[in-house]
């Protein structure tokens, strides 16, 4: 009889396991691969990004835009495989916050948590504002002038916030299904437009778009940084660690696939936009809304209407999925005692982190309304939020890449390649973040940079003070969905 057969026939009891996970209360092991994928994909909002980011990148990188997007794709793949060193080993709704706590300790974990909350929070506000803005444009097709009404945009933002609340509170399956449907439809619409445009161009590839051309390395770097903002959010499926079935298989897979699929969409969409404009003899960079302009110029104006609807829907999906991730990080912080324990409470029937939803969603809805009420238009508000979001995400990515080598060494599983990948990603991202923040300081979006840095400093100070008052709270940091007796043979 082999040891395995003996163990199965007469399992020896396993010590050191509890009956309940510290993260009990969420709908454990209830969603499959496609739900998990939907979470990451909609947090990235590829259709909204494919129509807006290439223009931003082109302003810096010129003809090297496609190449800059490709560089961003490679860097994000590097980050994704590094994050997956954690997602293959522990499932935690606190996501990067918990991972960094496990590698670099509670202090660094807390800073990561704050930067991650900034990332999710600002992108949620960005998307709610974006949904309101594009819905107003849609109304403007029928009622001329409606799109410039700040009041209408604000009302639409509040309506979208309310709808998000219902979807988020009713359960994780509903929110992932809704976002998957919306995102698939809007990516489909963009692909139809891409095919329609490319078919008017005839066969052949414009190879000049796949070279650096006369772009300087500095401009290329800034272009690549902006391109990264099109990818952020790909890690958000990690927050579904408790709720996913077979999380150690589905979450790493969803993270890598999100980067690959959205990257390919960006490459195709940016290439098409360039080719489309050069076919018209116009410059892509001078366009205000390139995709709408292209649709009009090529005689498919009705696509513009459909496109506005799909971008609004994509923004809504992005708001839902970013808030889904955000409330789970808040929930994990509540369970660990970094925030009041009420945040760790879940809804009895829907198994969602209801207190975190009730507290954060009204804030995420009201801030964009207030920013618009202060005299900014919706687009200004959005460019301001996106700076904060990019800063928060990239800072969190740097910290998680730095944590991987320490974590692997701590559990005795350090090998060469993960170490090389993590170090390369951390260094590259640190350069990228510095370049980005310095460049943004010189733009009208500078308050975004200042606010992010201020929030991080405030949080660090607050955490240090909390540590003095409640020293034992810091020790418990890093709780995750531990295996229970039920999971092991002989439990």
């Amino acid at each position: 009889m082999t040891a395995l057969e003996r163990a199965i026939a007469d399992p020896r009891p396993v010590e050191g396991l509890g009956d309940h996970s510290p993260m009990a209360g969420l709908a454990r092991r209830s969603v499959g691969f496609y739900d998990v994928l939907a979470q990451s994909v909609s947090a990235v909002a590829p259709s909204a990004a494919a129509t807006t980011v290439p223009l931003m990148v082109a302003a810096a990188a010129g003809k090297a835009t496609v190449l800059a997007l490709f560089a961003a794709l490679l860097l994000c793949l590097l980050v994704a495989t590094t994050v997956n060193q954690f997602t293959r080993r522990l499932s935690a709704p606190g996501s990067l916050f918990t991972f960094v706590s496990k590698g670099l300790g509670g202090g660094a974990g807390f800073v990561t948590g704050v930067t991650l909350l900034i990332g999710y929070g600002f992108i949620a506000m960005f998307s709610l504002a974006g949904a309101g803005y594009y819905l107003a444009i849609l109304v403007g097709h029928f009622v001329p002038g409606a799109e410039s009404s700040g009041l209408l945009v604000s009302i639409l933002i509040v309506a979208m916030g309310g709808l998000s609340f219902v979807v988020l509170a009713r359960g994780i399956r509903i929110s992932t299904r809704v976002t998957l449907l919306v995102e698939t439809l809007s990516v489909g619409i963009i692909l139809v437009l891409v095919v329609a445009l490319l078919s008017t161009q005839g066969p052949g590839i414009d190879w000049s778009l796949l070279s650096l051309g006369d772009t300087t390395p500095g401009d290329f770097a800034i272009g690549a940084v902006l391109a990264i903002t099109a990818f952020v959010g790909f890690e958000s499926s990690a927050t579904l660690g408790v709720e996913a079935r077979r999380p150690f298989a589905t979450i790493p897979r969803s993270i890598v696939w999100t980067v690959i699929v959205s990257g390919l969409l960006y490459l195709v969409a940016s290439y098409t936009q360039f080719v489309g404009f050069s076919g018209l003899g116009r410059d892509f960079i001078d366009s205000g809304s390139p995709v709408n302009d292209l649709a009009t110029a090529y005689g498919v104006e009705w696509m513009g209407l459909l496109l506005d609807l799909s971008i609004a829907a994509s923004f809504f999906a992005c708001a839902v999925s970013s808030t889904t991730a955000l409330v789970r990080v808040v929930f994990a912080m509540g369970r660990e005692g970094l925030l009041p324990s009420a945040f760790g409470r879940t809804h009895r029937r829907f198994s969602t982190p209801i207190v975190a939803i009730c507290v954060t969603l009204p804030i995420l809805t009201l801030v964009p309304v207030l920013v618009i009420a202060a005299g900014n238009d919706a687009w200004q508000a959005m460019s301001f939020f996106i700076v904060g979001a990019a800063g928060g995400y990239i800072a969190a990515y740097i910290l998680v890449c730095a944590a991987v080598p320490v974590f692997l060494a701590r559990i005795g599983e350090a090998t060469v390649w993960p170490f090389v990948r993590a170090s390369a990603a951390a260094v590259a991202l640190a350069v990228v973040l510095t370049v980005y923040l310095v460049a943004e300081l010189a733009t009208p979006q500078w308050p975004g940079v200042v606010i992010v840095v201020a929030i991080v400093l405030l949080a660090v100070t607050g955490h240090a003070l909390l540590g003095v008052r409640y020293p034992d709270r810091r020790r418990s940091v890093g709780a995750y969905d531990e295996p229970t007796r039920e999971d092991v043979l002989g439990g």
Partner: protein
Amino acid sequence: MVDPLGASGELRARQPKAIHSALTVLEEVARAGAGVTAREVSEGLGLPRATTYRLLNLLVQDEYLVRMPDLRGFALGRKVAELVGQVAPARPPQAAREVIAELRQRMRGGVHVVRYGDDSISIVDSDPDFPFSDELRVLREFDASAIGLLLLAEQRSLGRVSARAAHAGRGIDDDLAAALARGYSSQIGRFVPGFGCIGVPIRDSNGMLVAGLCFSGPRTRIESPERIVAELASSGRSLAPLLA
């Protein structure tokens, strides 16, 4: 869908030789006991460290192994028990097959025989004329079928709570109490509306539940079960020495 991880090195860990390596890793964890670390497994087997870590992570992904709360150690997952359950049970002896064939002639409905493990069910002989509507569900969801309810009731009477019982729905308590009180189990409409099944236990000489006889048929017959239960129980008594 192609596995994107395949391109980055996981592929090697999925080749046939790797299946052998994966089983030796499971064997090593079983031998060393819960809490063994990745490095200890690699040293114990003389496998390269990177390969061992990859295999361990794959086995954790598929839940054959569980990573302990210290994140360093590994334990066998509950799922390894299924490795044993997957092996097809031996064909019953001819004497048993004759009893079953004779019972089927009398019953005008599906007659199936299953064998029980500690927390598993294997089908010994399913009725070729009245096949199971959802065989996989019978094997996995013990709270759905009469066969599964028999096993859950047995586990409850022995004071054991299995993983599957813990996952079962809230309404299960009444079913189990009824099964324990009457000595047989039944359900209606959980697989096919208007149809149901009755399960009667087959015990060895020590009273241990070893196998089960199941009748499936239309609702009206399940609702007046006296004659069916008597027939199944009588055949079950003949089968007990042949199957136990």
